[in-house]
């Protein structure tokens, strides 16, 4: 994904991390928007269910998006 793009979440690759992501509102079927990335490309800032979150790339990469 590129900054500014949105996508629908379809699942997770990491069970342990997925429970934390679910708690923050990363639900399968909901829309996540990639806001912008930090100057060195990591972490990234995303928008999910009404608020902004920062994630490290390795965390963001456990989210499977539907396309």
């Amino acid at each position, binding site marked *: 994904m590129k900054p500014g793009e949105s996508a629908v979440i379809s699942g997770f690759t990491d*069970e*342990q*991390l*997925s*429970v*934390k*992501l*679910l*708690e*923050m*509102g990363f*639900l*399968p079927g909901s829309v996540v928007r990639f*806001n*912008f990335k*930090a*100057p*060195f*490309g*990591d*972490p990234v*800032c995303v928008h999910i*269910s*009404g*608020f*902004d*979150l*920062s*994630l*490290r790339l390795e*965390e963001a990469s456990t989210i499977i998006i539907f396309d």
Partner: protein
Amino acid sequence: MAHLKIALVGKPNSGKSSLFNQLTGLKQKIGNFPGITVDKRTGFCQLDESTEAEIIDLPGIYSLYPRTLDEKIVVEILTDRRNPDYPDAIAVIADATNLKNCLLLLTQLVDLRLPVVLALNMMDLAAKSGLSLDINRLSDELGMPVVMINAREGKGIDQLKRVLARGVAVSPKEIFHPANLGESVVREVQQHFGLTAPYEAFQYVQQVDRLAFLSEGDRKFIKEVAKRNDFFPYKFQGVETIHRYAFIQRVLDAVIIKSARGDWKGASKNLDKILTHRVWGYTIFFIILFLIFQSVFALAQIPMDAIDRGFAGLSSYLAGHLPEGPFFELISSGIVPGIGGIIIFIPQIAILFAFIAILEETGYMSRVVFLMDKIMRKFGLSGRSVVPLISGMACAIPAIMATRTIDNWKERLITIFVTPLMSCSARLPVFAILVALIIPKVRLLGFISLQGVALMGLYLLGFAAALLSALLMKALVEVRERSFLIMEMPTYRMPKWSNVGFTIIEKTKAFVVEAGKVIIAVSIILWVLASYGPADVMNSARKTVREQTATEGLSEQEYENRVAAYKLEHSYAGTIGKWMEPAIRPLGFDWKIGIALITSFAAREVFVSTIATIYSLGSTDESSTIKDRLKDEVNPETGGPRFTPAVGFSLLVFYTFAMQCMSTLAVVKRETKGWKWPLVQLVYMTGLAYTSALIVYQVLA
């Protein structure tokens, strides 16, 4: 008068501390939860004429499943009815503009059968965003009272107090029943412990190792039952969360009359474009850092000088007016200067934490974490290590306490380990004198002071040592624990000044209490070491000095100073200094400096006053006097000056790296729960200091 215990629960950035401050005002205190090092903020509040409540502010959490040490306490209290802090009612504070996220925790509390009130905060922002809610419907759907508040301005607080005073019933709703997920496990655990709610049993199984009140036998039992029935903790936790969000979505669909427009955050988005920009982001961050340091050092100077003069005056007044005797001498020259040595750092610490609180209140701090995370991770640290490292430049004690927000143990340990290498304000008086002594007072290009450059160099040296040590630790410490940085980026807001004020009071108190007790204890020990020695030598001190100096024609004051120097030389501290001279000679130090090294072990700034005493200056803190005296000191072996640039640089490097702070060791022991890490740190830093000073002296000499 009825007494209630009320717990405040909510996610970070939901306005929980504002609400706590509104409810309790100045009637709050910081303590510790028993057995663990998590600050416990409690306060009292008069709910109505006949009801008083003790308000407990629990750490901000997103759900009952904790990520950090701090957060663990919440589930521990709320699932243990015998806990002294188990509340009679809970006020969940939620950000009305982000309800979905806040309700997750609330539904968990409902399933624990806890009496809950929902306080909907930030109604002003909700109005601004065009959000419109049916509050009565929300109350019906959740089965609990809902109160609208604006915690920053204190609106709706009276209404909340009235609702709490009336008594809160348990919501009749059951949102998640762990029936399909290991029902037999839950039933068996529920029966065995006699729990009212099935969800409580579910939590026992999920968090069996985190709940400290469970005995070894309890744990064994739960694990055995879970194993027998195939309980999959992560999978079940995921199912639970999805189930709860489905419920929340249904509730929100029913109560949201008009949803929020996205454009009200526009200003915040534009700010982010600049503040996290690859060039402007860092430029602005460094300008802010620069402003903080200017203020910490320039603004604090005036009150610090006043405190210094005040305590010096008090000490000499007491010395002159108290009766003679060792006990009164201990008070006037041991305890009073010891207390002064703590109080003097309060202005700097207060100013530093004022800035940190403002940065946190405005929401900028999470952008700092965001900007710095990638860089810090290269060194085994996290973006969250930035705040402790910056705080370490005022004082390592509050800085190390601030590492509790780092959820990963390895990152937290490394941050604790390297923070004392950041040059704290106690090193400044030592640096100031030595730099003035060995660096000529010239200006480069007419306006840059060479002494200032040298001082900055020392700070950078400490910072570089911290980063390199972190890198070393990263390679050595083996901890298999996931590190993650899932962090909310709150909308920018103006700081609320009373919250800033409360933070300053809280942090300063923590410093005074934590550092205070150690510094006082050690200053008493050191005072004894420096004032007592073999009785015959000490008793004949006056006579010996009189005989030695008979031909010099000294004034009464000069004579007294000589006696003090003679006594210090022959005291136990002096004896140790002479005994260790062979060890420190390769660094260019003599026994006089050795004495100062010992006495400054409790706190570095003591170096200056010890040097003043040992060079017979009396009790002066005038740096120019000390400087001139040190300049004249002759090295008997070479006939040249004692404090050559080589000795000066060697000492500077030594003080940059050496631990030399008992209170920091005590805090590290507390935060790492044992003596292992403080001792490793002491040995490492002393070794680093010794080796570096050795290299510097041998190269320069």
